[in-house]
């Protein structure tokens, strides 16, 4: 007679998602959702989100229009509005990503780093989370833009929603690349002004950069922010007579450059960051 030994029953929760892929997709959603929830529960942060664009567009745009508007041949308020929109979102996620370094030793992030998910899923979840936090800022900028007299039709609004998403995600990937290259939090804090401030000018956020001398043109082409700003303007000025004057590159070129560098930043940045974290 043979004895049949029953394998010990293990209690598995019902309907576990199958496969690594699904687990990583769920993890990305969970990580992003956590950042968004934290944002929603922070009233002071929500308030500052809406105040900051008011100062930027109201004072800068209004003032510049009065000074240069007549001679430039196009509306300066529109120009600055689109530049600030792309720049704010791009920078918001780029800087937000640094919290990966900050709270590695804190609260829930420890949990994330030891969980059985892809390191790329962690980083993408984080970028998506910072994007969800940045987008309400974009909404704030658009609202104030409208109040201040930037004219927009529904198609333009829809286009801006799309470019805002792209600018935010792209900023996140750029932040990840910086994080991978930075040896420490202190180095990051010291170097960040030098990485972000010049791009206000080389990317043409406030000042037109259509006719730059060659050395500056090269620096401008190396500024990732340039492509996010130009894409935003390209969509905003689509089918408008000012398109030729304001927009630098064709839409497809901006998208292609951002798409390929997004992948590069994301993959190389994550790899370098995780390696530096483990090989302390």
């Amino acid at each position: 007679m043979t004895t049949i030994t029953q394998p010990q029953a293990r209690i598995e929760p019902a309907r576990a998602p199958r496969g690594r892929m699904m687990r990583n997709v769920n993890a990305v959603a969970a990580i992003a959702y956590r950042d968004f929830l934290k944002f929603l529960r922070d009233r002071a942060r929500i308030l500052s989100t809406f105040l900051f664009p008011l100062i930027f567009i109201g004072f800068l745009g209004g003032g510049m229009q009065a000074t240069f508007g007549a001679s430039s041949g196009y509306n300066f308020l529109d120009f600055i509005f689109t530049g600030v929109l792309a720049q704010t979102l791009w920078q918001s996620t780029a800087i937000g990503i640094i919290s990966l370094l900050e709270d590695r030793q804190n609260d829930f992030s420890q949990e994330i780093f030891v969980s059985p998910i892809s390191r790329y899923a962690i980083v993408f979840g984080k970028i998506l989370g910072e994007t969800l936090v940045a987008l309400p800022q974009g909404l704030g900028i658009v609202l104030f833009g409208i109040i201040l007299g930037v004219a927009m039709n529904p198609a333009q609004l829809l286009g801006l929603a799309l470019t805002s998403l792209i600018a935010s995600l792209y900023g996140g990937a750029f932040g990840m690349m910086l994080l991978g290259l930075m040896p420490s939090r202190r180095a990051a804090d010291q170097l960040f002004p030098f990485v972000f401030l010049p791009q206000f000018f080389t990317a043409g956020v406030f000042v037109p950069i259509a006719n730059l001398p060659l050395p500056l043109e090269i620096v401008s082409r190396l500024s990732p922010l340039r492509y996010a700003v130009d894409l935003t303007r390209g969509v905003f000025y689509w089918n408008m007579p000012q398109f030729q004057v304001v927009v630098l590159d064709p839409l497809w070129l901006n998208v292609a450059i951002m798409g390929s560098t997004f992948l590069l930043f994301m993959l190389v940045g994550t790899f370098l960051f995780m390696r530096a974290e483990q090989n302390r």
Partner: protein
Amino acid sequence: MNPIIHVSNLVKRYKSAQVNAVDGISFHVAPGEFFVLLGPNGAGKTTTISILTTTLSPTSGHVEIAGHDLVRDANGVRESVGIIFQQPSLDQNLTAEENVRLHAVLYGLYPFRPAYWLMPRGYKQQVSELAEILGIANEIHKPIKTFSGGMKRKLEIIRSLIHHPRVLFLDEPTTGLDPLSRRSLWDYLTRVRAEKETTIFLTTHYLEEAEQADTISILHHGKIVAQGTPDEVKAHLVENYLLVDAADHDALRQELRARRIPFVETPLFKIELNGNSPHKLLKQIDTPLTTVKINTPSVEDAYLAIIQEHDDDNSTASAH
């Protein structure tokens, strides 16, 4: 039975460090065992636990946990272990349930849903059971901020167990908790061990927590300086002696000398047992005794003696 944790010749040297933080340690932990890693601050405990839980790369050596190679299959290791960190790892802005939900999703137990009521029934059941154990059925949807320190620790432990880890790592889990919370936490862990046969790997400063261990390993300057059951660790290194006293000190002193029983006055008379039974020794003494104490060493005594001994060794070595 195959060990569930297998560590051989593990070395970690931090960048720009002159010495190894972990210096060639080897040990095994059997499934279901309660293993305690002791050592002074800076001995390499947290470094070791960071390596075993995949957040730090080893410089050299081989580690296998639940059959997964640490370097080649880090995700396999991550799936098999649960971790209680030294620093609290709950998100203060989220509710207890949200903290649990994120953990469950990260470990692939359930698909992600943005709200509790959208989560599968199995999950809700698990959460309500968990709230029952903690006695927080009413607070489960309240922010973690409102919880006590002991409660948060317990929630972390329960959370770390929902994916059925084979090994639970605890890095100084009771630091900063009041005695009552510590006791209740240990009662809970003892129950978990009995019910789920989870292997426990603990680092701690509280030596009385090590008394219940199956194996104690003492780490000092990155090396294992003593290892064994609590009794073995005590037996090897701590002297067994008798403390006696009499109203008539002179009489006792003379009698002990006459019978050639070596002693030290501390001011109690300390008599080494050297393998003799206390009973046999006491029978030899006629002077009426007022005090008789048998020294039963605690893990703490053994620990302090071992650390002391190795510090002495090191200073002699460096003097040459």
